[in-house]
Each structure stands twice: as structure tokens, then as C-alpha cells.
């Protein structure tokens, strides 16, 4: 049932930015830093979504996912690989034996400008190929035109097509204009059946930002209080350094707390972040600043 969108809280942008600034000023050091870095690593959806992707590229990425850095012990694997539907089968094959999930984008990613029939077919194909998770995009045009029922119904339909697969709903916050809209879109997605709400496709600027993430975490909090259901969250795009990832974790820690500090409820959509975290972990162990030459790029 589409929720009542008239009573949603409003957000003061400057106030949100100031709260975010407080999170960014936390200083994470020593053991707590290493803990945070490892947690962040375990939450990464290692991503390749390029027009020029090939089977070779995807295979290499999968190998990297399973062999992050041979010189480091006791590091977790990433949470998932995220690819286009045509590579789900290959990825599933390469990742056999690990517990790394295969997430596939679908629904005419990234624009979503296509018929429902096409989007359903896109989703079903990915699921049949073996996808564990589906990252869909909402129809931003309909949303901005106030067609909230349309947006809701579309998500519900895709959720059904997902079957056992988990559904992440990409709001494309960079196109939603205001924080109040981000809240509204989050609300629609959660009530329509999203398992995760996700900020961005990573194909436009701005991608994930801390203020929109804050609003989405706040939406998740209120949804839990109303329904008892935990929804996950995934910021994607622009999170390229450990420092930024840790700031997001601080925010997650202080807004939603311990039960969400887990890859089942929080993911980072990133590609170069993994290596930066590995470099930071090696620096923590050895005391020396690292060079990217010593970390495989796949």
C-alpha cells in the first residue's frame, strides 16, 4: 500500500550539513580505525558497469574479489560483485565456493527510461542467470511529475519479479533536487518492498553524498519504528577513499547503530575504495605510507 506522503518530516539542508560535518570531524584512530576499515571492506559491492565491459574484465574483477591482497591476513572478502545482467552467469561461476554475492543492475539501468515490460524482462533475465541481488532504478521523471503511485507500483512489480533475490532500489538522489524529495522517494521504495535503498547509479554527478545518505538513514529509522522491519542502505559512487568510507560508517554508527553495522544492511557501491582500504590496513600494520604499485588493480 502506498504510504501517506503528506506527513513526512521535512529537512533543513544547512542543519543536515552541520550534523554531517560533526560526523566528519570524528577522529578514528588505532584499533577502532582498523576495525572500521575491515568492516568497510566487508561491505563493498565491487562494481564494474561500463559500456566496454567484457567477460575478461569481469573474470579479473571476480578474481580480485576473492584475492584482495595476499600479504594481509585476517581480512574479510567484499560483500558482492555488481555487474550488468549479461555478466551474471560468468560472475556466479567465478565466485563459486565463496560467499560473495552477485548483484546485477536491471530495469534499463541507468536511466530507467523504458517500458515496464522491458524492465520486467531485464530483471527476470538477471534472476534466471543467477543474480542474488537486483539493483533497480526508480522512474525519476514520474517521481518529479508527482506520479507517486506509478513509482510505487513499478517497484512492487520488480520486487515480485525478483523472486528470492534481494531488491535494492536506486533513487538516483542526484536528480531528486531536494532532501525532502529524497525522504519521499525512500518512503515509497521501502513500502513498495525494497530490501535496500541505494543513492545512485554512479553515472551522474552528484552521486552519493553524506547529506542524502543521512536522510535515507533517517527514513530507515522511522520505517523500523513503524513496522519493525530493517531495511538496508547503500551509498554508491564517489566513495573512493578510506577516509570517506569511515565517515559514512561513523554516521551509520551514530544514526542507526549496531544492528546496521553489517554487510547485510549496509553496502558501499565502489571500485577503487577496496585498494585504498588495503593500503591503509598495510600502513596500519607496517607504519609506512603505501604505493598503489604494490596492490593489484583488476
Amino acid at each position, binding site marked *: 500500500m502506498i504510504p501517506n506522503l503528506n506527513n513526512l518530516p521535512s529537512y533543513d539542508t544547512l*542543519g543536515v550539513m552541520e550534523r554531517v560535518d560533526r560526523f566528519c570531524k570524528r577522529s578514528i*584512530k*588505532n*584499533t577502532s580505525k582498523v576495525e572500521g576499515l575491515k568492516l568497510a571492506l566487508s561491505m563493498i559491492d565491487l562494481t564494474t558497469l561500463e559500456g566496454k565491459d567484457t567477460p575478461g574484465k569481469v573474470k579479473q574483477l571476480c578474481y580480485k574479489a576473492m584475492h584482495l591482497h595476499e600479504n594481509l591476513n585476517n581480512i574479510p572478502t567484499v560483500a558482492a560483485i555488481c555487474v550488468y545482467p549479461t555478466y551474471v552467469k560468468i560472475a556466479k561461476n567465478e565466485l563459486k565456493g565463496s560467499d560473495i554475492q552477485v548483484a546485477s543492475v536491471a530495469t534499463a539501468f541507468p536511466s530507467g527510461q523504458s517500458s515496464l515490460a522491458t524492465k520486467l524482462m531485464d530483471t527476470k533475465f538477471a534472476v534466471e542467470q543467477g543474480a542474488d541481488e537486483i539493483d533497480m532504478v526508480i522512474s525519476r521523471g514520474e517521481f518529479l511529475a508527482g506520479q507517486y503511485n506509478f513509482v510505487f507500483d513499478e517497484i512492487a512489480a520488480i520486487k515480485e519479479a525478483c523472486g528470492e533475490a534481494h531488491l535494492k532500489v536506486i533513487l538516483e538522489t542526484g536528480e531528486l533536487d531536494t532532501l525532502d524529495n529524497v525522504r519521499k522517494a525512500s518512503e515509497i521504495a521501502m513500502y513498495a518492498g525494497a530490501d535496500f535503498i541505494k543513492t545512485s547509479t554512479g553515472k551522474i554527478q552528484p552521486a552519493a553524498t553524506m547529506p542524502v545518505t543521512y536522510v535515507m538513514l533517517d527514513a530507515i529509522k522511522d520505517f523500523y519504528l513503524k513496522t519493525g522491519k530493517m531495511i538496508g542502505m547503500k551509498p554508491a559512487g564517489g566513495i573512493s577513499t578510506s577516509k570517506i568510507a569511515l565517515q559514512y560508517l561513523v554516521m551509520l554508527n551514530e544514526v542507526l*547503530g549496531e544492528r546496521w553495522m553489517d554487510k547485510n544492511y549496509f553496502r558501499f557501491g565502489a571500485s577503487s575504495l577496496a585498494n585504498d582500504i588495503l593500503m591503509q590496513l598495510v600502513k596500519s600494520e607496517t607504519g609506512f605510507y603505501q604505493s598503489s604499485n604494490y596492490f593489484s588493480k583488476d
Partner: protein
Amino acid sequence: MTKISDKNIFTASWSYDKALESTDHVYIKDQYELFVNGDFIKPVEGKYFNTVNPATNKVISRVAEASAADVDMAVMAAKKAFKKWSALSGKERGKYIFRIARLIQERAKEFAVIESLDGGKPIRESRDIDIPLAANHFFYYAGWADKLSYAFPNRKPSPVGVAGQIIPWNFPLLMAAWKLAPALATGNTVVLKPAETTPLTALKLAEIIKESGIPDGVVNIITGAGQTGAALVEHPYIDKIAFTGSTAVGKFIKNAIAGTSKRLTLELGGKGANIIFEDAAIDQAVEGIVNAIFFNQGHVCCAGSRLFVQESVADLVIDKLKQRMNSLMVGDPLDKNTDIGAINSKKQLETIESYIRIGKDEGGEIYQPKCKVPKEGNWCPPTLFLNVSQSHRIVQEEIFGPVLAIQTFRTIDEVIEKANNTPFGLSAGVWTDKGAKIFHLTQKLNAGVVWANTFNKFDATSPFGGYKESGFGREGGLHGLKPYVKFD
């Protein structure tokens, strides 16, 4: 619906290691003298007193106690320096003040660390708020020095003479900047007395004053307690007094100088009303409540210490507030992650604790999150009192600590009346999404500073000061020049 705060569903699990700001590069002498006439001189009676780190109660340094004779020397030095200083072109005067601003910026970290050590405020606040605001204040007023002919239509301003300035312990360096900058820019000379529990950053500022090359005697900084202050106020060659502190002492000063031609500005206490309407951005309003009363441990004259929340959203706001308070970190001021630092002195802690007892005795419902605090030092957890009214003492009297009194209201007229129902009039806050409501309230609230959808925001360009018993005169902005000039 589940209450956010009761069941601790959203408890933070990841605890942060201590992230202590380093103190290696910070130079604090064992003993400080008085800064008079461009030099550091020993006090005539040879008396000193200790200044203590309120987080550990350990002595950091000892500073000179200025006797009446020392005060006299300082005032005479300022008087002597006045002729040349006021005759200097505004352009050249401004350059000295720009230098002070730049020097503070260069030594910012050192100032921030000393401020936190001496006063107890979190390093995050001294580093990000106090010190930058202080540098900016000098920067702003430096620019006015050669532009005064534009500041007062149809009037030719000239300096008042020698200003005696007494500042409090809650924002030591910032208050020194608020006093010195406009006074110097307009051509006055100064004798400044910092608070006895927080003299160090003022004394470091004296080092900068010397380094800037400002002529001897233009700025004099003398340390001491109440008696030093009284001697300064009563000195016959002081032309103008600027005092920031308690309302009681402010009244005393006004009385003491009655009948003299001394000019006076006062910036005194407050019991600010912070008003949350049902149509506010509630999440940010809750953050605003926290910033209003827990910033700087509530040691803020303009703190939003009386919360008025519209009854229809009271449960929601209070619930969210409690949960937010649960994540505030009380502890070592030098830990970069500390949100609430040490209470400035044993004496102040006793005052706060006594009010907390009064609040309980009066029947207020108290809420304090469980906080882990260090064994040594002066600590007070963030505190709420619910179900209180305008008739409770803790709602009427300034506590000057992290203690918030919460009342509900139903209509706009009701809250305006209650907000104004106080002898104080320094600040107020209004939280609502509706523009017309903002303007209606800002027009009706009797306070010198009204914050809409924000709180505790300060800027060198923005005039600050009170109505009624919160004092008179403004600091900051164009209006902040007025106390330091006279017109032919």
C-alpha cells in the same frame, strides 16, 4: 509505535579510540607576568595565583595578580599611549590589527590546545569555532579603522579614550577579540582583564600583541580576580568600561560608576527561549536543541536553556532528544571526539549541581544519560528537566551548565508571552518551516539575537547583545563600533 530512546535499538556499537590532540608543540610557561606598556613586568606586590586544568584539576601555570598599583600603571600606560595611537592614520592602525589576525591564524592550533587545557572546552570547539572566530573578529575590525567616516551618517566619530575591559571564562580568547578589536580599530587604548580561571590565551595574545609591533601601552593585559576588576572599573582615568559576565556583577558596575562620565556596555546573563513548532524540520530542530544548550557545556550566556516545544510534537521531540543525548560523548577536552568537555571550575560545578538538586526538589522530572567520565576533574552529564513551568526556579534562573528545562505550549501567542516572561533578553530560537511564522516571531521576541532554524551562530559582522537585564550595547558588525566612539 516504539519509542526511539527507551529500548536502545539504535545504540552505537563501534566505540572510537581516544584521539588526543598533541600538546608537544604548545609552549606554556611556568609563570606569567603582567603585560603593561609593551613589556611583561612583575606584579608590584609579588603575588601570583594558579590556573588549573578543570579536566584534571592539576595546575598548569601561575599568573600574576594585579594589585591596585599594577592597575594604575596599566591605565597610565594606556592613557599615555592614547595620544599617538589615536592620531595615527586609520590605515596604519588597521595594519597592526590585520597583523594580529594573521598571527593568531598562524598559531591557531597552539591557541586551541591552550584554550581547552585552561578552560575545559572540547578541542573540536576551540579549534573549529573559538579560534577562527577570534582571528576573524580582528580581521573584520582591522578593515574599519580607516573607514569610520562611512559608519555613522552625518557624524564624525572619534575615540573615547582608555577602555577598561573585563571578560569571562567561557570563551576566553574570543571574548578578548570581541573587546580588543573594535576598541583598537576606532583608536582607543585598552586595559584588559581576563577571567581568573582562564588567563592563558589572553597572555599568549599578549605575546602576539608584542610581536605585531603595536606601540607600547596601546594594549595592556593584566590578570587578577574580582579585586583587580574593581580597581580597573573604579580607576579615574578609565573613559569606558566593557564588561561581559554575570548580571549581578553588571548591575554592581553600573552602580559603582554612577555619576561619573564613564561610558558603559554590558553583556550579561540570559535564559534563552528555544521554541520548536510542530511544523519545524524536527530532526534538525533536535540537533538545534543540542547545540543550543550543550555547546560549550552550556557555559554560554545566549544558551537556549528554556525549551518550548509545541505540545503536538512534544513526545516525538523529547524522545528524539533523549536518543541524541545518549550518543553525546562527555570526556577529555583534548580528545577530538569529545562533545561535552569539563565544567570550567569546581565552583561552577557546585553551582550547577545545586540547581540540579533544586530542580529535583521542585518536582521536575530529570533525565541524564549514563556517561563514562574520568575520575579526576569537573564533569556534568547533559541533563533535562521535564514537566517544569515558568514558576520553577530552574526555569527562571541562569544555571550556566548543560541543563535544559523543557516546557510545552499550544499557541503562538502563548509561547511569545512565556518566552518574553523573563528579566533576561539575550537570545531566542525559533524552529518552523513557515516563513511568515519566523518573521512574526522574530519581530515579537524581546531578545537581542534571534536565531531562526539555527542556534548559537556567531560572526564578526553580526551584532550581538541583549535586551533588558542581559545587558546593553552590541558587539560585532557595524553596530559594534558605536560603544567605542564619540561624536563631536
